[in-house]
């Protein structure tokens, strides 16, 4: 019986029902996407160390520093160990690489503790200059095994005049967070620097482990002051702070986007809720007739509520399904950097349906109550 009544309500004006579902669908797609993809912005900041200082080129995040900067940092009091690396950029189409190659000092894993690798692999990286440790995700994606040669073309010219580079895979590393960071390989800086014909002796970033986080400021100032007037001015700060700083511009954008999306979301909800209640109000006479036929107040109340809930749940389901379909698209668009980062969490699904229920309730409770209390005699008076 309820199904007949609900269907009657929904097919009454098919186009309106369709448009209502579509606009609610957009709202719930927004909801699902906001919830799911917001981890882009917040995810990268977690799990960073206050004991690590990062030294970067001051004015150009992607510029280079001479290796002498690393030597200077290492010489400072309070600095325990220094790791530095340069990016070796593979040419995508001609590579078995999908990410970047860190040409690093061999103590990469000692300092950058977010990255973890087995001891034998770390040992091999230190002792054999041709070895590489490959991110687990990339290894899986590309089918790379221990003992393979990791060969790729890079934008840097090798000493033989070609752009071909090749390393021996000795193991795999994992990261605790952001699987995109597993789309890379770590190789020995010295062997790369010796072999390349340009940009010799330069590095992209330095990471220094300090004995005491309280000294972070003084050491940072010392480094930045020292190179302030050189052509390679630096910017230094704790890993955690730098990451936040880098993310803060993104965070502003996120805030604005979230605000816009939220207002769109609520506007859609309100408009849809209004359409739904209007559609129910138009049926006063029909509800009166049904009451004549013996339908009870309570039954009509329930049917109106169910109809609204059915409608929003359709939209919620579609919206979440849409989000689910968007995940691989976003991951694809990010070139694998964000691979396996996103999940349509159970909480999000649950929250979506709760939200749907609230919308249905908001939209339907007043007209349903009117249906409940409608006096047949009044509904049917034709004057």
């Amino acid at each position: 019986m309820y199904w007949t009544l609900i269907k009657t309500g929904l097919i009454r004006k098919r186009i309106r029902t369709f448009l209502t579902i579509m606009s609610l669908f957009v709202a719930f797609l927004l909801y699902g996407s906001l919830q799911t993809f917001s981890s882009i912005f917040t995810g990268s900041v977690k799990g960073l160390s206050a004991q690590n200082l990062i030294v970067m080129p001051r004015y150009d995040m992607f510029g280079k520093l001479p290796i002498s900067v690393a030597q200077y940092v290492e010489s400072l009091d309070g600095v325990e160990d220094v790791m530095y690396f340069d990016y070796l950029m593979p040419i995508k189409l001609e590579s078995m690489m999908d990410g970047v190659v860190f040409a690093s000092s061999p103590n990469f894993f000692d300092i950058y503790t977010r990255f973890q690798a087995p001891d034998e692999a770390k040992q091999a990286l230190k002792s054999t200059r041709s070895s590489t440790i490959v991110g687990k995700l990339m290894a899986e994606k590309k089918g790379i095994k221990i003992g393979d040669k990791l060969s790729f073309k890079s934008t840097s010219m090798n000493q033989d005049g070609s752009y071909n580079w090749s390393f021996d895979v000795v193991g795999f590393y994992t990261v605790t967070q952001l699987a995109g960071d597993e789309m890379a390989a770590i190789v020995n800086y010295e062997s790369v620097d010796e072999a390349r014909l340009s940009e010799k002796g330069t590095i992209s970033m330095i990471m220094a482990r300090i004995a005491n986080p309280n000294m972070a400021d003084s050491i940072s100032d010392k480094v930045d002051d020292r190179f302030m007037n050189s052509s390679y001015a630096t910017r230094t700060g704790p890993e955690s702070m730098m990451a936040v700083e880098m993310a803060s511009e993104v965070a502003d954008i996120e805030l604005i986007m979230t605000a816009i999306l939220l207002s769109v979301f609520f506007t859609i909800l309100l408009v849809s809720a209004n359409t739904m209640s209007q559609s129910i109000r138009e049926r006063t006479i029909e509800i009166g007739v049904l009451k004549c036929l013996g339908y009870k107040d309570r039954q009509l109340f329930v049917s109106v509520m169910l109809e609204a809930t059915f409608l929003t749940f359709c939209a919620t389901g579609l919206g979440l399904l849409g989000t689910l379909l968007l995940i691989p698209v976003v991951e694809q668009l990010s070139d694998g950097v964000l691979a396996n980062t996103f999940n349509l969490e159970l909480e999000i699904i649950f929250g979506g349906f709760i939200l749907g229920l609230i919308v249905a309730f908001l939209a339907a409770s007043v007209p349903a109550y009117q249906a409940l209390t409608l006096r047949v005699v009044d509904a049917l008076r034709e004057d």
Partner: protein
Amino acid sequence: MINLIEVKEVSKIYNRGGETLVVLDGLSLEVPKGDFLALMGPSGSGKSTLLNLISGLDSPTSGSIIANGKHLEKMKSSALSDWRAGNVGFVFQFYNLLPVLNAKKNVELPLLLTNLSALKRKEHVATALNLVGLADRGDHKPSELSGGQQQRVAIARALVSDPDILVCDEPTGDLDRESATEILNLIQILNRDHGKTILMVTHDPVAAEFSKRTLYLDKGKLTH
């Protein structure tokens, strides 16, 4: 003859902004089983109000209404719903079919409240549509039917749960003479051959001719 309906000293009084409007004034009426009663009277005289009281859609300010052995004025809304579903069929001036449902589905509506199987419901619907001569129009939407045909679907809907009482409020008020005659013939057959007790409000003396007796309502009282 036993009385199917007994209206005793019923008053219906509305209070509107301090003004009292006495619509029915101590009215009494007895309707034996199998009667076909036409109610006439000027507009606003309370004809619909009386029908609504008898069919349990409204309750009187005072007095009692006994229908099929039940005191309607003492029943709660949900009990009245059940009673209506089992005892009264409604025919309205403007048919009041659900526009999105086809004739069959419209006729089936009262049966959805029963626990009849789908198959049984289908049988009852077919019987009712057959009775009103629309066996071949079951799949048509109201908008695809003429006024007279829509009214016949409405009659089938009123009949489908086999109630004793048929309440018709100006059933031909919106129809041309020819369709009106068809509908009135049909109602007459239901009264004569199927034993339905019929209460019909009409403005049309010709329509009233089809009934067994006609009562006039004026200023809240019945006259003959």
